[in-house]
């Protein structure tokens, strides 16, 4: 097959491209330039989006002997990921930009362009399994598993995707990179959000949304217990940095329970008030077989690297509904609910949807 390897400049995508070459595919490497002004990204390689990363990706492609190009997706990335990220926070939700990038950029804008140019599929270094059965499964390396941020992909997108790393641990990938002479073998993992170079998400949001002072209200008493400079700076389940004027009457810690953009209010309360047993979600995708007519017994994950809970999931006209077997704390609107079917060969992604409440 003619395949396009998305190469971030990190070790995973370099090894993924190498394996695609070894599998006999005709591989072309592409680095996605996502920063509108590359000059601002010149300092420090953080795993993606920097000038060093573009060079690292090019160097890896040269070692593999494959063609390499840089595609400018800065405008699309800003519209579909960065602006969306800011708008979601402004709306009181907690977005996952990596998931959005997969949905809108890597497996949409890039994949569509690749197909138009005559490529059959896109290869990425995501840690997830996608076998001949077409089912998306967790990586063997559960600590690095990225099936959660890929679960948003549709059948059509998965059919044109190749994830060569799903059967390997990160340690194996690094060792293989070293064996193949790829200079990125020891490059640190990327962690934080790639477009927030200094890791200061609050500062990033404050710059774009401005200060919007409002009240912090106790859910139990209705009393105003503090103030804030912008409700968008809070996430459901957050405990630190609340700057409350007075302790709770019972002396126990309080958490953010909800954010109400309309009144610019942050509501806080005790940990148990965070507990949720039912999750509603919108825009469902179902790729683990036929779309189910009735309830499905499965497991759900409600945030990246979050716990897995047994649940009953059903699809209806409004979206996806999950009945959790035990309550879960800190479920934030804007995150994805991903349904998995436990499987010894790697838990299978059944479907996913965006949490609304």
């Amino acid at each position, binding site marked *: 097959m003619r395949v396009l390897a998305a190469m971030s400049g990190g070790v995973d995508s370099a090894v993924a491209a190498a394996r695609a070459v070894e599998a006999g595919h005709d591989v072309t490497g592409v680095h996605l330039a996502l920063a509108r002004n*590359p000059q601002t990204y010149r300092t420090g390689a953080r795993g993606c989006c920097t000038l060093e990363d573009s060079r690292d990706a090019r160097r890896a492609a040269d070692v593999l002997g494959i063609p390499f*190009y840089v595609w*400018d997706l800065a405008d699309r990335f800003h*519209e579909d990921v960065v602006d969306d990220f800011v708008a979601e926070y402004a709306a009181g939700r907690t977005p996952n930009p990596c998931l959005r990038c997969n949905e809108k950029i890597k497996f949409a804008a890039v994949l*569509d362009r690749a197909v*138009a*140019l*005559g490529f059959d599929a896109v290869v990425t270094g995501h840690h997830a399994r996608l076998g001949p059965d077409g089912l998306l499964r967790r990586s063997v390396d559960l600590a690095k598993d990225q099936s959660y941020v890929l679960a948003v992909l549709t059948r059509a997108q998965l059919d044109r995707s190749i994830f060569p790393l799903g059967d390997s641990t990160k340690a194996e990938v690094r060792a293989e990179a070293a064996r193949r002479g790829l200079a990125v073998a020891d490059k640190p993992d990327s962690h934080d959000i790639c477009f927030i170079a200094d890791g200061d998400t609050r500062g990033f949001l404050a710059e774009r949304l401005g200060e919007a002072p409002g009240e912090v209200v106790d859910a139990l008493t209705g009393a105003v217990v503090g103030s804030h400079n912008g409700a968008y700076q809070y996430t459901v389940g957050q405990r630190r940095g609340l700057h409350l004027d007075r302790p709770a009457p019972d002396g126990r810690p309080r958490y953010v329970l909800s954010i109400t953009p309309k009144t610019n209010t942050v509501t806080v309360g005790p940990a148990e008030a965070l507990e949720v047993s039912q999750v509603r979600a919108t825009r469902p995708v179902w790729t683990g077989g036929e779309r189910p007519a009735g309830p499905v017994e499965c497991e759900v994950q409600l945030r990246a690297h979050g716990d897995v809970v047994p649940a009953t999931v059903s699809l209806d006209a409004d979206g996806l509904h999950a009945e959790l077997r035990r309550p879960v704390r800190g479920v934030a609107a804007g995150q994805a609910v991903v349904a998995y079917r436990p499987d010894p060969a790697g838990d299978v992604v059944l479907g996913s949807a965006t949490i609304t409440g």
Partner: protein
Amino acid sequence: MAYLDHAATTPMLDEALEAYVATAREVGNASSLHAAGRRARRRVEESRERVAAVLGARPSEVIFTGGGTESDNLAVKGIFWARRTAHAGRTRVVSSAVEHHAVLDAVDWLAGHEGAEVGWLPVDAAGRLDPERLRAELAAHGERVALVTAMWANNEVGTVQPVAELASVAAEHGVPFHTDAIQAVGQVPVDFAASGASALTVTGHKLGGPTGVGALLLARDVAATPVLHGGGQERDVRSGTLDTAGIVAFAVAVEAAVKGQQEYAARVAALRDELVERVRQAVPEVIFNGDPVERLPGNAHFSFPGCEGDALLLLLDAQGIACSTGSACSAGVAQPSHVLLAMGADDDRARSSLRFTLGHTSTRAEVDALIAALPAAVERARRAAALRTPR
């Protein structure tokens, strides 16, 4: 492989490569006083004479450098500094909107760091400068102009400038005129003395010599403040141990290119015309860029409406065809060409452009390969570009 990117770099001539290897085997620093040094110096000076002889310069006007970018920087900054030192009021640089970045960015640097003001000369839709615009510029600001710099021929669209007229206008006002002739030497007749220029940039790897060696022809009465300080080689204008092997090979290549220019230009222009005609037949809506007559013989430059140049490049590259989209930023992102924008093209047309350049090894089979691959590539690139509309 069809190599249609000779303006980026062209294969070394056999005789230049052989001269390089033979000289590189010999030890000797051209500045040393012993026999080995004298031998090296003799090779350098013979090379200087060869270059001077075929380019209409005196040997003492040839300053060897590390290539075109260095020569351009030395000319632009060096002459600016020297002229400003002589007369504090001369802080204006006159240049064109279509220069190579080696000139463009050097001029910009002077504006940003040395307080230079810049008069940018516009070009017409074919990329040609108008000497009357220079005359008006110098009539208005002549007293304050440190130098005029305008390229002999454009590296992207291949348009050849009226250099002698521009130099003569500059001379009327007593202003030194530098020309970047990197794309011109060996392609069109270039004679330093006859052109009236005060300084001229030439480089090796565009005409069959090695990369990393070039020259600035600098008239004896024009002062240039050095960019590189050190051992005082090359009239004290360009310090650094002379690259004897590179200089020898450079001189061989310059001599061969200039002596063979007429025959070369006739042959390559005929092949280029055939390429242009066949591209037009294959893709009727193509736009041919640059001056149709005042043009480098090997250059064919097109806009492909509805396509992105970088997509076309990828598709042609996959078929073994090498061409160019113009410039890319440091991260490798293709940029719309400043040359096409200066010629009045909009952003889309600038981004839809490809350059094909022929050279001394070009064959009809390479043109055949391009024509065989082009229609399908254009169709695919169009489909990909259509996706840009927001959904």
